[in-house]
């Protein structure tokens, strides 16, 4: 019997022996009866004597309830006088010290006792920033829409899976890279490709990890597009306008939840992860930005009442993301250094990301996100709806400390936040770069990093690493994969990795790897190669379909080619019906067989969702390139 089980038994036995104080039980029951009456009855106003009694009663209640409902937004009122005017109230000086967290998050040698005492205390790992899922891509396929190519990111796909990082030794520092090299045949062409996986390990144990107190501003999109169904494209409204009224009413009756309702629930879920020593504020925006709740300590906020207000938010107006971000940035600027230091500082944007007012350029929002990041105020985007504009967000979340998630369902989002909220707000490693010293080998492609386009022939760059959950020695999203050009069997590569911790201190590690002929024992690199090829195939299909290319980029001669860059569209988008050409249906069939073989070797049943997706695509409506049936350019602007 394990020690843990014994202590559980002691606990059960110990609790069982305790005698309950029945007198206390009765008195608490009586007090509940009193409270029930006072909470649910309207306060009577009448004669002076009566009013005095009421006041005395409420004074006694209020004296025991210090948290305040400081929600200031009223959607019924004219909002002009609320814009920007009520900023600056932050409440509470905050008292979190830096000392203990400095110990945990600086480059450290983990105490021996921590690493060896308990099996349950395995180290957590790291994952890159940027996208944390490909949920928008999956939802579009499931709903019969053709996704944007930007909805499918390598890092988002990787983050949905756990990887063996190939770690050979215990990591005793903040970050440790591990390397596994492998050779693998392309399933379409049969040509051998060489890959190197970079495992993202840390010396932090689950027990050691605790996020700093958090200054958090949630910026909520309340624009008109948020009122459409979670599973519809808002800008398909033009089609609805041509319908008879009865048909439109029937359509809306069948709508399950609006994006606004889903967003409200998501924000209330986020609020559930805040601690008493966190600060929390809310900004809403449509055409303009409105302060809904000043930033105050959670301990001095009536969070239940604020949650009720959030659940009552309804959609209206245009979409001026810049205004929302500007107000949130201003609120952080108004915090004193004392209030910022020793805190995680983060803005969480909850949106469908379809700006149509203010500065809608990528640069306008990007500039503010970058400016905030320089002040260690980082940004997360929570995407809502199948028409979540991934083009815009994918480009912005390449900024230091940024990341994004998509809400699939409220329940799914809640479960993910239970595991990932603390990690999501705690970037720990910055400016990770890996350089090669090799005469012949160069990097052909980087998979699993939003900064892949910043890679050069001998250098890989990752902007930010966030802590990531581990299970059974595997880390969620715990690898970055490099496809190598010019690899020669037996050649040694000298690798140098450098990174900064959150305090700007730089660290350097060196290692070497020998190019081998054949596969690796590590399941991590094999899974990464499988997923990278899968993503490449899907991206080639999406780009070819979007660009109406007549010959698929993936051929028996060239294999699964590295996808070309695609042009970003403007932000408002309409749906395009899912279509798959016969050529790609055949390719998906070949890849399905390859993936099934790999799944049996990797023993990861989660991968079966990709088999389902490939089968869905093979059953989708067919089209030959050049047919009139293929939708053309679908950008509105």
């Amino acid at each position: 019997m394990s020690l843990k089980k014994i202590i559980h038994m002691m606990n059960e036995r110990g609790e069982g022996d305790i005698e309950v104080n029945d007198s206390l039980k009765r008195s608490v029951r009586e007090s509940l009866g009193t409270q029930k009456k006072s909470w649910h009855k309207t306060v009577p106003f009448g004669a002076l004597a009566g009013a005095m009694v009421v006041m005395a009663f409420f004074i006694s209640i209020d004296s025991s309830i210090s948290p305040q409902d400081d929600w200031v937004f009223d959607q019924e009122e004219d909002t002009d006088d609320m814009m920007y005017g009520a900023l600056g109230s932050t409440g509470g000086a905050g008292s979190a010290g830096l000392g203990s967290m400095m110990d945990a998050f600086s480059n450290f040698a983990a105490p021996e006792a921590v690493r060896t005492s308990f099996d349950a205390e395995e180290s957590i790992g790291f994952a890159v920033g940027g996208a944390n899922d490909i949920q928008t891509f999956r939802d579009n396929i499931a709903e019969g829409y053709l996704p944007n190519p930007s909805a499918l990111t390598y890092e988002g796909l990787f983050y949905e899976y756990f990887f063996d990082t190939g770690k050979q030794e215990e990591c005793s520092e903040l970050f440790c890279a591990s390397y596994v090299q492998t050779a693998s045949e392309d399933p379409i062409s049969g040509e051998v490709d060489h890959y190197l996986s970079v495992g993202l390990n840390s010396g932090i144990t689950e027990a050691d990890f605790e996020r700093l107190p958090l200054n958090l501003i949630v910026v909520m999109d309340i624009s008109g597009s948020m009122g459409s169904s979670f599973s519809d494209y808002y800008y398909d409204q033009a089609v609805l306008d041509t319908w008879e009224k009865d048909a439109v009413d029937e359509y809306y009756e069948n709508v399950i939840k609006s994006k606004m309702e889903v967003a409200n629930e998501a924000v209330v879920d986020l609020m559930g992860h805040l601690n008493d020593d966190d600060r929390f504020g809310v900004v809403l925006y449509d055409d303009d930005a409105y302060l809904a709740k000043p930033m105050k300590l959670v301990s001095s906020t009536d969070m239940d009442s604020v949650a009720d207000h959030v659940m009552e938010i309804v959609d209206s107006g245009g979409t001026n993301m810049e205004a929302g971000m500007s107000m949130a940035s201003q609120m952080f600027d108004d915090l004193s250094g004392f209030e910022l230091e020793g805190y995680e500082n983060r803005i969480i944007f909850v949106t469908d990301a379809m700006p149509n007012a203010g500065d809608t350029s990528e640069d306008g929002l990007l500039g503010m996100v970058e400016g905030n990041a320089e002040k260690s105020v980082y940004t997360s985007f929570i995407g809502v709806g199948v028409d979540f504009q991934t083009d815009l967000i994918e480009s912005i979340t390449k900024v230091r400390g940024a990341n994004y998630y998509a809400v699939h369902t409220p329940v799914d989002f809640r479960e993910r936040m239970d595991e990932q909220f603390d990690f999501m707000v705690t970037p720990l490693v910055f400016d990770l770069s890996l350089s090669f010293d090799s005469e012949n080998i160069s990097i052909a492609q980087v998979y699993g990093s939003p900064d892949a386009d910043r890679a050069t022939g001998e250098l890989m760059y990752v902007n930010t690493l966030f802590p990531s959950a581990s299970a059974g020695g595997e880390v969620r999203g715990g690898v970055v994969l490099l496809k190598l050009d010019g690899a020669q069997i037996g050649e040694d590569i000298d690798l140098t990795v450098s990174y900064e911790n959150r305090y700007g201190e730089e660290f350097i590690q060196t290692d070497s790897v020998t190019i081998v002929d054949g596969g690796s024992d590590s399941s991590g690199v094999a899974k990464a190669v499988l997923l990278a090829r899968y993503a490449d195939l899907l991206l080639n299909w999406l780009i070819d379909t979007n660009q109406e290319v007549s010959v698929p980029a993936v051929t028996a001669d060239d294999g699964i080619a590295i996808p070309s860059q695609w042009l970003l569209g403007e932000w408002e988008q309409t749906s395009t019906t899912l279509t798959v050409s016969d050529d790609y249906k055949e390719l998906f069939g070949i890849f399905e067989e390859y993936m099934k073989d790999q799944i049996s070797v990797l023993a990861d049943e989660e991968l079966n969702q990709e088999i389902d997706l490939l089968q869905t695509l093979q059953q989708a409506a067919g089209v030959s390139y050049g047919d009139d049936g293929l939708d053309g350019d679908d950008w509105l602007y």
Partner: protein
Amino acid sequence: MKIDQKRAAFEAHYDELFDLVYKFVAYRIPNRVDAEDVVANTVEKAYRKIRQFDPARGELRQWISGIARNEVTAHWRSSRPVVSLDQLGPIEDLSPPMDGRISDEIMVEHLMENLPAEAKALLTMRYVDDLTYREIARCIHKRPAAVRKWFSRMHKRLQIQLNKVYES
């Protein structure tokens, strides 16, 4: 479930829920006066926040246990230090109480008799409530390193003792 239904469910199971909270809290906070304050706060808070109870996520018992756990943690953090780690160890004689095979029940009872109430509370925080060393350290106003050290000592002693019991 509407809020009135939630409130009715709470009231119908009041006795059971109160007992659950009372035993949960009293085992973790050895001082009876402090524990009863926390019990009252927990039950009152749960009733006040009954709107947040979501039957889809679990039963009332699970929900109120979560609130109780948070209240216990908040109590530890806000109270003055009452635990002296140095005075908690070493554990008194934990040699097997009898020769030959020993049932799990008797062994657990024996261990409990020899552990101070504060030690039981700390072990419960760590192994039942799954608090991290850092969280426990914040609760009892000690340095994380001191807590780790105490657990390391306690772990070894309990393990040695249990091995002896099993070997016998």
